């Protein structure tokens, strides 16, 4: 990626931040409307009554583990599977009974599915030729598309002569050439190695912003979803558990599943003792402390809830902190030095293990703590979240 692209990307991110995203505007018409979609394979319910609105020019990520139904949902958008019940509207048109080859949708396959007997250029031009675009026009657009994915010089090669990253670009070019209104991407970066994946993520965002196409990406990789997405839909057992912007999904998970699926988290079980509009206090025998959170929740008194704290939000110290709540005592059981940060596993008297990560601000940060040290763990009132489900 060139430096000018980096600047482009930053400026466009800034520009995007200024305008209110369409999913927050009242009355904005969704581009893709999924209404109560259910898909059953025999007895097995792959997708269970899912409703979802996706807006124009969004880069929407469906995130979930294997068998969560995310791929099935994507295949229903492409038309490869027919929903058992429910409706899908794309740009206001009901997709029921519309065959894959007639949908204004293209898909980039996880395996790329490049045609092995055709050259790179013929692969990319394939969709145009089926549309009956003239030869000269098809040639021109193919060349443009190959240039965009920086493969202009490889048009005459066969797919098996390309590297994994190059194949991925061919697949992307091929799926974009018909200028689809909606591009579906099934694990688009799954087959690439880590370094290439990070580079390609940003390229994908650039291309998406340049063309203004709506992307729906399926992925099991939460980091990928966080980087790519304008919004994330977290799926589990055929249901979308939470739909939010990446920041909100991470900082305000709405359930234990989401909190644990995205990043790592420490969960403390407890009972609500005080529930005021601007704070909650929870007694947690597991944590061995009383925990306060500076936002109110709506719950029954004495309800059993979970307090979620991310490992990087926990401070670790040998001295007792000054705050009244939100501190625990424990013993360091394991230390993992990971270069940029150190991970501590601290055992509480209750037997509960707490995971804490600390950035290594200085070179000798990690040496301040050692095994079996008695330490205090503490965090701010607005660092934790209460989960009722």
């Amino acid at each position, binding site marked *: 990626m060139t430096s000018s692209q980096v600047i482009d990307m930053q400026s466009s991110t800034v520009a995007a931040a200024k305008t209110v995203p369409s999913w927050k505007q009242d009355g904005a018409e969704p581009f893709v409307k999924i209404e109560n979609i259910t898909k059953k394979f025999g007895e097995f319910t792959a997708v269970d009554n899912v409703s979802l609105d996706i807006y124009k020019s969004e880069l929407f990520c469906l995130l979930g583990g294997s068998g969560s139904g995310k791929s099935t949902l994507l295949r229903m958008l492409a038309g490869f599977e027919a929903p058992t019940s429910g409706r899908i509207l794309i740009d206001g048109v009901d997709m029921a009974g519309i065959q894959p080859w007639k949908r204004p949708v293209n*898909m980039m396959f996880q395996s790329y*599915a490049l*045609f092995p007997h055709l050259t790179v250029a013929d692969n990319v031009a*394939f*969709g145009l030729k089926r549309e009956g675009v003239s030869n000269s026009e098809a040639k021109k657009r193919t060349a443009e598309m190959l240039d965009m994915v920086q493969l202009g010089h490889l048009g005459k090669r066969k797919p098996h002569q390309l590297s994994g990253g190059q194949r991925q670009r061919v697949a992307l070019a091929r*799926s974009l050439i018909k200028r689809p209104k909606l591009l579906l991407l099934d694990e688009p970066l799954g087959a690439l190695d880590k370094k290439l994946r990070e580079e390609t993520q940003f390229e994908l965002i650039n291309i998406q912003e340049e063309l203004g196409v709506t992307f729906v990406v399926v992925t099991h990789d939460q980091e990928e979803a966080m980087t790519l997405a304008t919004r994330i839909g977290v799926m589990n057992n055929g249901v979308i558990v939470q739909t939010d912007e990446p920041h909100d999904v991470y900082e305000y998970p709405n359930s234990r599943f989401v909190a644990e699926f995205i990043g790592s988290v420490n969960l403390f079980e407890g009972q609500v003792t005080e529930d005021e509009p601007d704070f909650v206090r929870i007694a947690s025998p597991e944590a061995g402390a009383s925990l306060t959170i500076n936002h109110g929740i709506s719950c029954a008194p004495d309800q059993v809830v979970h307090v979620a704290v991310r490992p990087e939000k926990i401070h670790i110290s040998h001295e007792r902190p000054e705050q009244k709540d939100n501190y625990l005592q424990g013993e360091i059981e394991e230390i993992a030095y990971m270069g940029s940060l150190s991970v501590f596993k601290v055992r509480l008297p209750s037997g509960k293990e707490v995971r804490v990560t600390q950035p290594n601000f200085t070179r000798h940060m990690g040496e301040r703590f050692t095994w079996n040290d008695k330490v205090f763990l503490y965090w701010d009132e607005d660092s934790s979240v209460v989960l009722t489900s």
Partner: protein
Amino acid sequence: MSISTGSAWVDGSSSLMKRYKILRGTNWGKAAVVGVPAIWLAVFFFVPFLVVFKISLSETAIAVPPYTSLLEWDVEEAYMTFKLNLGNYLYLLEDAFYLDAYLSSIKIAGVSTFFALIVAFPIAYLIARSEGSRRGLLLALVILPFWTSFLLRVYAWMGFLKKNGIVNEFLLSIGIIDQPLIMLQTDFAVYIGIVYTYLPFMVLPLYSALEKMDMTLLEAAEDLGCTPMKGFFLITVPQAMPGIIAGCLLVFIPAVGEFVIPALLGGSDTLMIGRVLWDEFFLNRDWPMASAVAIVMLVVLVLPIMLVRNSQGKQEAI
């Protein structure tokens, strides 16, 4: 090799050394792996081929074996004659009967190969798309007929196709025809026989090509605007091409020289080169002529096949 060799010998000794190295570098295990089949082919294919070629250049004689020797040695005159008779080959060109036989064989084999392909493709496709255990069963069913005698199966077809055979009986009973159809001893029966007999040779290579195909390719084609029919011709057929070529060669080559099927199912006017060969050999006892017919058949078959293989190899190299 001596170290004190003069400079004039350097060139010679270095080439000697190279040869020595090559000898030492010979991988005997590898040589044996390649050598054993090579010797086998030489002894059981190439030598007999040379013998047949030799016979084709001799003349018939009332003797044992019934042909003249190429080399004659007159002891008294100390005179050696070496006689090559090209008459058999010239006769093949002169007599239109042989040309007709070749063309008719190629036509019958070609048409049969085409129909074998049409019949085998759906079978191979179905097997390639079946689940694991079912796939094994279906493949076994394709190979199963080989467990009974080939001759027996051709005779069975006579039972099906004859005037009061099963097919005619059935068609008469449901009233589609009121006269039995003459099917046996026609070219039609020969086609049926060849397609039936050689079908597994078409199904198996097609299956192995289709089985390797990634089904998401068809979804990708549909996604890019292909109807399933178009996707079949633009994606499946090219993907199956190695299997199509292999299957067609495996059916076409033996079908051209087929003798038993036209002899049993064909009529007296079914002209195939295998029968001509048989007649020359056993009825006319003209071994040289029969040999010439065989050699020409080999050339007619081998040349196009080599061309096909060659172009295939080049394509793969690209």
